[in-house]
């Protein structure tokens, strides 16, 4: 009798899971982050008498909704092992394109479509450079970051586009019901869509597989380049959408619009527990991170703390939230 056969008689059942879903949830990054969010919420309501007010909270959501729209797509991109630093510049270029269309006399639908399509095209440009030419995305998008905004400067110079139609204002200034803004609604819908796509579809599984091991993913029949290209498209599209919202909220276009936003988006994604090295992360994490960042900036804003101090807090949060569990582990080991 062969050894193998002896083993086969001993074949045993392997359970699906050892832990219950509830236990997993409790131990996850997301719950740690949720605790932080709740803590900040409570602190805020003690620190400022103006905090617990529906209209004020509604206003506060503008601090993160546009960034979060991009952060969802960026999360997928980073999970797949790439990055797009040009998103803020895509916003500028999309906004400029919308301005051009608006000046040509087109109405709101055409303006919005232009914003979205411009975003898509920018994403496609990044995607081609990364997937077809095989260039590292961080480098490509440092380049397109200057290029896209640069085109915007070429078109606009020191001018501005203003005079968007009044219906256009709906995206960035409108309310769906009561204090629920249009942007917040878009954010919520996108959160659900992205959560489903990432966590419940083959596409999402492919994203994880690519980020963990692109070679093995290729061998497993995943069309890696195609998936990455789609992710760049999505990120461009989301930047286009954010551009629609931001332009609508500001009611005008300048080439300097949204400058520096790319790093805030990346910060939001990383704070949300997405590994910058690719391969892991979740949409609920990003949603909570969006709220954390929104709450921190709004709460400190109510105390009239300068923006730069807020960014210290966010920077420290970023390192701290990642470092603390590791320090704890190190201490426990020794």
């Amino acid at each position, binding site marked *: 009798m062969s050894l193998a056969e002896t083993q086969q008689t001993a074949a045993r059942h392997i359970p699906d899971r050892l832990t219950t879903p509830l236990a997993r949830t409790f131990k996850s990054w997301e719950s740690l982050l949720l605790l932080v969010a709740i803590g900040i919420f409570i602190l805020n309501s003690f620190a400022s008498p*103006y905090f617990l007010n529906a*209209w004020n909270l509604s206003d506060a959501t503008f601090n993160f909704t546009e960034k979060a729209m991009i952060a969802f797509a960026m999360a997928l991109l980073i999970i797949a092992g790439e990055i797009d630093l040009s998103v803020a510049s895509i916003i500028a270029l999309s906004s400029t394109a919308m301005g051009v269309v608006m000046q040509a006399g087109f109405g709101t639908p055409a303006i919005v479509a232009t914003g979205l399509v411009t975003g898509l095209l920018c994403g496609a440009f990044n995607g081609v450079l990364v997937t077809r030419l095989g260039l590292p995305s961080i480098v490509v998008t440092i380049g397109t970051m200057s290029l896209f905004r640069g085109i915007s*400067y070429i078109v606009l110079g020191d001018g501005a586009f203003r005079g968007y139609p009044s219906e256009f204002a709906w995206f960035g200034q409108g309310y769906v019901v009561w204090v629920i803004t249009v942007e917040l609604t878009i954010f919520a819908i996108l959160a659900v869509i992205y959560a489903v796509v990432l966590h419940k579809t083959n596409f999402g599984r492919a994203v994880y597989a690519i980020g963990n091991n692109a070679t093995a993913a290729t061998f497993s029949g995943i069309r890696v380049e195609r998936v990455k290209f789609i992710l760049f498209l999505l990120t461009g599209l989301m930047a286009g959408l954010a551009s629609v919202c931001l332009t609508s909220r*500001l009611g005008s276009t*300048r080439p300097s619009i949204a400058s520096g936003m790319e790093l805030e988006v990346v910060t939001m994604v990383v704070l949300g527990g997405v590994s910058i090295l690719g391969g892991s992360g979740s949409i609920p994490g990003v949603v909570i991170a969006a709220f954390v960042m929104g709450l921190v900036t*709004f709460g400190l804003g109510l105390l009239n703390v300068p923006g730069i101090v807020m960014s210290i807090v966010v920077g420290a949060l970023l390192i701290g939230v990642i470092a603390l569990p590791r320090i704890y582990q190190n201490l426990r080991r020794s």
Partner: protein
Amino acid sequence: EDMRIALVVKALGIGFFEAAAKGAEEAASELGDVEIIYTGPTDTTAEGQIEVINSLIAQNVDAIAVSANDTDALVPTLKKAMQRGITVISWDSGVAEEGRQMHLNPSSNPLIGNMIIKLAADELPEGGQVAVLSATTTSTNQNIWIDEMNKVMSNYPGVEVVATVYGDDLADKSYREATGLMQSYPDLDAIIAPTSVGIVAAAQAVVDAGKVGQVNVTGLGLPSEMAGAIESGASKSFAIWNPIDLGYSATMIAYHLSKGDAVAEPGASIPMGRMGEVTLDETNSGAMADPFVYDASNIADFKDIF
């Protein structure tokens, strides 16, 4: 309960605005029942100002007086502020009419436009080449002043504006642009920088290029920051209105509008304490005072003040 007036500036940390804040505090202590919230973003962006203004709206302040980074982008937010019953005025750098109740120009725009070219032309009796070093391409007030300046160029025959460049109110970029100007135009006689950051950088660039005496730097600057340039001779003279007075006046106007003892409408006069009163034109804007010229003869008296 004190009245809370928020003084929103383009960016924190700029000497000009720090001085304006001093003026606002002066007005507050004169009025007695006023609390000043001095705030602004840390870099000169419209988005940053919007976040700041949103939090001011949330705090339900009584008045917002803003020096805007962008004429248009702040309008929706400021409109919302007005809808919630907050008095909104702009000062120094204005916002579009629908976004504020009135705008306080530090001085009349045509006067400033004329002043900056006159300072340069006075040193060039034979005529010559001048170039403009502005702040960002989107700075409202700089753009208006340069426009006004171009309108009166015919009064200065022989003086030619050869280029306009942008230093983005960043010291290094302004410096590099100034250096580039001197290279592109070897015969350049003057650099006009209608911005307090640009003028200091340009003066430094002139000193470093060894062109003191050949290229005169002028424009709008703060005596405290320009003292060195006057001393080295890189700048013969420059102008500014008193930012302390500006902050003071803006606070006074906001106070009276908010109290309701003055209204912002074309032709109206609004009291500004020790600065007298401002009369509004058809766009609801008014000028505070004439710019004041500083040179070697008077700089010592002012450099420790602002």
